[in-house]
């Protein structure tokens, strides 16, 4: 039984809440990640959130994540308030360097909760997502419509009673009538997005940019109201890449879900495995050996380089320069050669395992890494001359799509896009994980928060990643590449023929999959594009009860209308390119 707040001496932010709201029945929940977690009644939500954001000193200024859980089948409640659904708010404070999780318990088939869209600009999309996937209503939301699923969809997919497999559903057919219905649902209704078709003395053009357009980096649609070529209104439309990755987490074993994570930010490769595995390991109580941690860091940084190189090339290409992307793809392939030699795969190695990595480093890995480290810096200098210092490119990028740190935090912008505003905050420094505290590296920042600075920051990050990789190379610890823990999957089996333990563990973990103790844990990494978290809920089973993936790109795309208003279509393309997103990272 978790005692209610008033009954125990709470410290930190929970104590502050207790002081501010005396006599309220807030319930504190212990979570594996140690983030203060508190359940508040729906009626008090707005007041609590307002306090946390505005009145608490310093405040939790970023709405880092907002999601929901279908609680109806959860067995291990351990004194949590009775709930059919819960809405989870994850707030972040940069000044405190700490987070708080606020939950609201909801009951009934069609629950509702007050909307936060008046308090945080970025609550809009998160609440639409929760409505779409869970059927939770947010009272006061300006435009609560589906965001991931097609408008014509029946049901709310992340509810436990919604089928997860195609075989559980009716056979899919697309007759002509249905096709027209679907197409009609995709047609832009300008007034729905606050767009005007006619002005006082001129007509506006409503343009559909995407979902298949050469420069939207995948299937992403921006609806535009244009005055000539000037953007009056923009409304991004996402969901075309939605594959239900969170739903899949609920029917894959903890181990077999790893490859799915690779495909979230599909340019981030094994870096996606990291937050997921860190969360699983935390709940399982696994200590990852130093060698495994360092290998993880090294490969993560390799993927940061490949992702940033792809960004660099496509960014310059979207601004209209044809050649650089080819050079950068050549370099990227060099990095992939090293990655492939180590992991056996290029883009989606799924190579990290619960408790470590899949295999030890191969013989001669150090020579390969050294070659890459010697090769890359020269090339970066070339690109600077070729692309970054080009006057035409500068003219198109400097001062375009600007926002400051305040606005970035309001919109939930993280990673290089936040640092481009000059805000020096890197998760690897602020809250080191996987041994990042042992590395020396700088946090590159920009000044203006415009398109150009977002590119510069990433270019400098490539250099810093090279520094980190070099330190990994020079100081690779000896030891195990995987923890000796029963939940490590698959376990190290060097003694299998002598002892029964590892054999049994192997048998269980491979046939059932590991059983992770009941609990909740959210782990975050500084991914290629910003902060990426996995918020896992285990109900003490072989599969996750709820897998929430907080991706940076989702937040970044939501900001597009805000920074592109009044600019031209080519500027929008430059902005889209500079944000550096992949749609799989947005839609999951």
């Amino acid at each position, binding site marked *: 039984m978790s005692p209610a707040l008033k009954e125990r001496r709470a410290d930190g932010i929970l104590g502050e809440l207790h002081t501010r709201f005396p006599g309220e029945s807030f319930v504190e929940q212990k979570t594996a990640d140690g983030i203060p977690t508190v359940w508040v009644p729906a009626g008090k939500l707005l007041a609590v959130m307002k306090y946390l954001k505005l009145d608490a000193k310093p405040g939790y200024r970023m709405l880092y994540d907002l999601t929901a859980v279908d609680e109806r089948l959860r067995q291990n409640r351990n004194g949590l308030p009775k709930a059919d659904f819960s809405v989870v708010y994850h707030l972040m404070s940069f000044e405190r360097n700490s987070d708080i999780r606020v939950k609201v318990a909801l009951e009934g088939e069609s629950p509702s909760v007050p909307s936060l869209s008046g308090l945080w600009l970025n609550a809009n999309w998160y609440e639409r997502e929760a409505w779409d996937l869970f059927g939770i209503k947010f009272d006061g939301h300006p435009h609560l419509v589906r965001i991931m699923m097609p408008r014509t969809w029946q049901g709310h997919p992340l509810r436990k009673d919604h089928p997860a497999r195609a075989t559980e559903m009716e056979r899919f057919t697309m007759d002509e009538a249905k096709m027209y219905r679907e197409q009609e649902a995709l047609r832009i209704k300008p007034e729905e997005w606050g767009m005007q078709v006619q002005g006082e003395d001129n007509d506006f053009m409503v343009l559909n940019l995407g979902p298949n357009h050469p420069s939207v980096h995948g299937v992403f649609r921006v609806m535009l109201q244009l005055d000539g070529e000037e953007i009056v209104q923009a409304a991004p439309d996402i969901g075309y890449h939605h594959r239900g990755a969170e739903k899949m987490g609920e029917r894959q074993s903890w181990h077999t879900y790893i490859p799915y994570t690779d495909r979230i930010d599909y340019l981030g490769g094994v870096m996606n495995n990291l937050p997921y595995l860190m969360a699983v390991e935390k709940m399982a109580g696994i200590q990852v050996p130093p060698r495994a941690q360092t290998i993880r860091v090294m490969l993560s940084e390799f993927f940061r380089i490949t992702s940033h190189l792809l960004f660099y090339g496509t960014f310059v290409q979207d601004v209209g320069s*044809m050649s650089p992307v*080819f050079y950068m793809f050549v370099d990227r392939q060099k990095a992939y050669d090293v990655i492939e030699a180590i992991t056996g795969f290029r883009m989606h190695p799924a190579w990290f395992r619960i408790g470590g990595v899949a295999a030890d480093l191969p013989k001669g890995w150090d020579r390969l890494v050294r070659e890459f480290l010697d090769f890359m810096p020269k090339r970066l200098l070339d690109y600077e001359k070729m692309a970054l210092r080009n006057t035409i490119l500068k003219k198109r990028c400097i001062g375009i799509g600007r926002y400051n740190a305040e606005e970035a935090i309001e919109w939930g912008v993280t990673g290089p896009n936040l640092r481009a505003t000059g805000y020096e905050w890197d998760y690897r420094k602020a809250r080191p994980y996987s041994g990042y505290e042992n590395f020396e590296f700088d946090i590159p920042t920009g000044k203006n928060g415009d398109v150009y600075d977002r590119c510069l920051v990433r270019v400098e990050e490539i250099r810093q990643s090279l520094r980190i990789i070099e330190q990994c190379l020079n100081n690779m610890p000896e030891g195990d590449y995987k923890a000796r823990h029963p939940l490590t999957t698959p376990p190290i089996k060097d003694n299998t023929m002598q002892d029964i333990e590892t054999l049994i563990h192997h048998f269980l973990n491979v046939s059932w999959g590991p059983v992770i103790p009941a609990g909740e844990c959210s782990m975050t990494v500084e991914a290629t594009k910003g902060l990426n978290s996995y918020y896992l809920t285990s109900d003490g089973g072989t599969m996750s009860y709820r897998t929430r993936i907080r991706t940076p790109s989702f937040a970044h795309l939501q900001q597009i209308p805000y920074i592109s208003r009044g600019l031209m279509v080519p500027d929008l393309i430059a902005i889209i390119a500079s944000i550096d997103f992949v749609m799989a990272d947005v839609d999951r």
Partner: protein
Amino acid sequence: MTPALPFVLPQWLITVAILLAVVGLAAVLIWVERRALGIWQDRWGPNRVWFLGIGQVAADMIKIFMKDDWVPPFADRAVFVIAPSIVMITILLAVAVVPFTPELTIAGDWNIGVLFFLGMTSLAVYSVMLGGWSSNSKYAMLGTLRASAQSISYEVFMGLALLGVVIQTGSFSLKDIVLAQQDLWFVVPQALGFLIFMIAGLAETHRLPLDLPEAEHELTAGFHTEYSGMKFGMFFVGEYVAVVLVSAMLTTLFFGGWLGPTFGFWFMPIVWFAAKTGAFILFFVLLRAAIPRPRFDQFMGFGWKVLLPLSLLNVVVTGAIVVGKGS
């Protein structure tokens, strides 16, 4: 003096030969460009079909001829079909005035050669305009608006840039212009005019970095978004013919046309002309590989605020010098 051809060709044969050669060259250019870009961009380019991949030209042609000839149901059919042919016709007509050598020309001695060239390139904009307009599609529409604005503006600077050459020669005949460069190529006294003409020529041909009417990253394919098959092919080849034409004009107007040491061989003038033109074509390809695309409004601003005063200045100064010398 230029040695004469050792044989006399009937004019109709010359005409047919020149037109075929230009269109053929434009087709080969597709391969040249792709190979050259490939080499500059650290990749192969088409290298599979026949020797060095040059058979790619034939393969591409077969592909483009076999493609479904589709007219979108929402397009204005008649205009949509006519538009692509306009660019081919006007550009080929403009080729008529280029003197490849004193004899090898269709109408090189024509006393309004320069004006005819300008007129025909101006007419070419109708192709883009009508094509984009009749497509009845938003991206084509945006491309068309850009194309008309760009072509009409850069037409002005192109004409003004040429005036310096015309003033110095005192003739609109391209043959006279070449002959006037016996002592000194016009690129030296008319360096400014040369630069402006080159930029304007690039803008007229809608090639990267000045391919704003197509700007695939912004407008998918701009004015020819709805075109496919051979109709698209006409725009495509028309663009290459225009590249050949602009290169040939640069050679003629500023680099002495066929002039160059002949060593007594009758074919040397042709070689000189081809070499100079080829160098410009490759230069255009290199530009495409090297430079990013400016934003449309920036580019138009550059034209009217920088190129226009400069070209006017060029005309005034050249005129003053010529008048001063004459008096």
